[in-house]
């Protein structure tokens, strides 16, 4: 059995915008080991959220494959992929994406309802999550009655309630102030550790990324390794990036070319 819980090979995702085609993810390959915490960084519009959506099975690539626990999710039908997401993955969105008409508790339980999980299968996890995320006193409130930090904690609990094997987080603290962001991140990391799951996080924040086992940089749809257990590859990344930019830059015109 492969030691990688997630393998992405040669992913391409393009969008049509009017007359032109934008390549948001350009030939990206990635391997993630079981229990690893991986951070993806990059500037706005570099394609990191799109990549995360592809890895989480929330979107389909134009080309390439994503294999999670030996299952190529790009080959699954829409129905099977939904079921797979419910069983194996959890997602924390930047904007929380809580269902407005449901209370905090009901929002947390959405994945269990969607996967038809019986009560006894998640009661224990629910208690742990409520305790560790400190949301016990807000369970009966609607999202609109919660603060941003509380909403994000509810969103984290929702992502973890089914005990996913891989957790995808898209700038989970992007909408929070520093204090709240630190608090939520701590809780997320602790909970991840407690549950022993793999996490792939998209972030702008280097202090958050620094806590990851590996950091990848995304630029113009391409993915570069920036840090791993051996240390930083800042120079290597910059060299790779420069080489790539030179390759793509238009060649200087000779004088006779006008």
């Amino acid at each position: 059995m492969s030691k990688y819980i997630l393998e992405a090979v040669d992913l391409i995702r393009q969008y049509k915008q009017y007359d032109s085609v934008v390549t948001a993810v350009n030939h990206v390959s990635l391997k993630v080991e079981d229990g690893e915490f991986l951070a993806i960084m990059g500037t706005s519009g570099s394609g990191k959220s799109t990549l995360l959506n592809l890895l989480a099975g929330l979107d389909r690539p134009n080309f390439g494959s994503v294999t999670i626990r030996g299952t190529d999710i790009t080959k699954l039908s829409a129905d099977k992929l939904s079921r797979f997401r419910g069983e194996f993955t959890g997602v924390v969105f930047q904007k929380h994406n809580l269902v407005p008409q449901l209370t905090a508790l009901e929002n947390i339980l959405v994945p269990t309802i969607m996967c038809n999980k019986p009560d006894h299968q998640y009661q224990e996890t629910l208690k742990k999550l409520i305790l560790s995320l400190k949301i016990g006193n807000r369970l009966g409130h609607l999202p609109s009655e919660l603060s941003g930090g509380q909403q994000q904690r509810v969103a984290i609990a929702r992502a973890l309630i089914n005990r996913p094997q891989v957790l995808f987080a898209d700038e989970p603290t992007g909408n929070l102030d520093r204090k709240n962001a630190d608090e939520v991140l701590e809780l997320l990391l602790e909970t991840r550790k407690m549950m022993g799951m793999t996490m792939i996080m998209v972030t702008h924040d280097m202090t958050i990324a620094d806590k990851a086992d590996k950091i990848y940089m995304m630029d113009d749809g391409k993915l570069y390794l920036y840090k791993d257990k051996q240390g930083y590859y800042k120079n290597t990344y910059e060299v790779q990036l420069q080489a790539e930019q030179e390759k793509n830059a238009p060649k200087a015109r000779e004088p006779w070319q006008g």
Partner: protein
Amino acid sequence: MKLLDSVKRDVKLTLKTIRFEFPRFICFFVVLFLLQGLFCSILTLYSNNDRTQLDYLESEYRAPNGELYHLKLLGCNETQRAILHNFDMDQEEEKEIFTLLGADITQTTDGLHRQFDLYVRFEGDVEESYQTFRARYSYALSEQGQYVEETTLLLSYELEQAANRAVLILQLTLVVVLGALAVWMLHSIMTNHYKFTYGVYMSFGANFLRLFRTSVWEMIWAALFTWLPAVGVANLICWLLFRNSGLGFAISIGGCLLTLLISLLTVCISVFASIRSVSRKPPVRHLIADDNSNLIRSPRHSASLVDSTFPGSIARLSFVRFRKYVLRLLGMALSFAMLFVGLITLSNCYQRMLDTPRPLYQVDFAVPMYTSSSTDAESDGNAGDAGEDAVSDTPASSDEAAPDGSDSTSDSGSDSEEVDYASYGYTDAISEVFAEIPHLGTVLKESTYPARALHSHIRLDESAAKIGAGGVSLSQDGTDWRYQMNVNYQSLDSEIIRSFEFLGYGIEGSLESVLTEPGTVAVTDSFMGSVKFDWEIGDVIYVAKVSGSLSDAQKVEQSMLYVTDEDQILLAYMQQCSYEYTAYTIGAIISDMPTEDSWSVFFSPDEYETVTGYEPVYESVKIYAKPDVTEAEEAEIYEWLRKAELVYDNLSVTDLHARLSKQIDENKNYSGVFTLFAVVLLLISAIVWLISQILFYVKRRGEFELYLAIGAPLDSIRKLFLQDALLYACFGAGIFALLAPFVSWLIHRAIGYVTIFIGGEMLASFRLPVVPYLIGIAVCALCGFVSTMLPYLTYKKQGSPFHWEPSETSDQEETVNE
């Protein structure tokens, strides 16, 4: 247990959604209320009609012993009674086809003998048993003397029931399909506007089945909440309908329960279709609608926001920018409005059919078979003279009045060389006798010869034939001709003209001209219930007659025995036979005449003989009473005809049960049901306009905020709404005005074909109802305008216009377009 748990969770989740977001479910409550009301009305009317129809028949057809009978044998003598009794006794129990129920005993007019009216009930398949009875026993009975067979409507009751059931199923299917379409459209609009929630559910494992269960429960709740009010209102309407007609009314519990079942089926079908498309898209497509709120994706359009042409160009652009949405909205809303006109057309057709006078009785005359030598035959018996003698209040004795019927009958078929057909059937002399029938409206006679039977056809100008007229088109000597064989040649005389006037057929030109001007004919303009010809008075048609040997035509006839395509047969005739064409000028055009798959050309009797080779012979006539005759007066007519039947042994009378069948048709109230149906569809159309537009503009509020933020004046937003509203109104009304007549015609044709397929009556010809058509145009224009201005007025009412909070759910152009 797990299932119960899961259902409990679904119920809780969906109830909560409905409670929290009740406004978005209002349209479903309204639509399901209307649909369930319609389902329940149809079922309740059917159940009550079924009951009242049976009640009628059972009260009408009871033998002296109180049992129901299918056949009455009138005027039997002692021997006939004994024979029938013996036949009844001799039947094996398991193969019993009839039971003799009893007899009414009367004295003959001379007071010397007893006369019996025998009551017979058929067993098993009553239709089949009746045929067996006729085959086995009628001859034996008739050998013992004259008697009259009178069948009852109970005999065809089961067939009638089957037809009623077929119509019910057809109506329900139509309502289910249209209902499912309406709920699907509204549900699609809703899922498109609220797809964020579905995106979240899908991100956390919801597959199609899971989403379907969630959504269908929402709709089931809507159906359950509206069920009781809907069946209540439906039963109230039905009760009022029945109370007005003075009939007893009973609430149909089965109908009410079936209403719920059908509405659940309807919501399942519609939610299935709508959720299927949602579940096939990746969740990110649903989530992104929220993530990019308040953004206008089109930089090209955004760039021109503050230029001098604002808001005119923007408004026009928005109609183009959201073209997919506009097309979808117009498609949905207008299709329901068009169905409104289509169904009102049907309703009018049924009402016209109901208002058309119905023949009470049919009188058939025994006429010998036609033979080739018959045309030159001389008269050897004069029924006319005898008939003239018989003119009196009631027919005189057979010795005086009978047109030597026994001889005539024995002549038929065997002695062909000297048969004068003009002396048979409904002659002028008989006509004079029949004129004495009390309360008589008219006697409709018909002498018809199909063109195909004569190897003949009609040639007409191509421009006179409309779409669907069929036939063969050929160009000759620079003229485009249409050749048609699906035509009947009919004879016309002054009595028939009077009948047509009595029946209220639409007549353009003068029917008398056919009789007074040689070479003039009258034509019908439709068949299969729709107008197929665009005739004008003075147009010329050409009647084809085989000019050469008939053997060529007979060969074609033989070779085409198994060919059903009339045009192919006609082409074969035209290729292999030579024809001479005689021109006839159209002097009158008859519309509204019920026709099946052929149209008719009416000739004067002389021309008829020239064209067909035979004098007109009227083998059967239909008796119509004056309008508003009472039941007792109808009975008088029947009594008169029965006496005539005993006097003239070459005629037989059949009761067509017109009063009863009209009463039954009135109770079916198809016209009312279709009108109700049409009104419901128009309301649904209005709901589609309102809901769709309100949600659409709520989604766009962020866009307007942005316009204001970057310098557009407030008034320009109002103008933008106004311009959009006018565009919607114009497009809505315009497209409706153009397409509604065609859609109505299409519905009329489709229902016409289906009705014939299930053995029903031919629909009355297509006529676009002008007032509902204008109402449709007005409603489309009004809905287009109001549904666009309403969101603006609502926002304005909320205080300072366009001070909306940044939207959590507002959408971008492409998302709205999906």
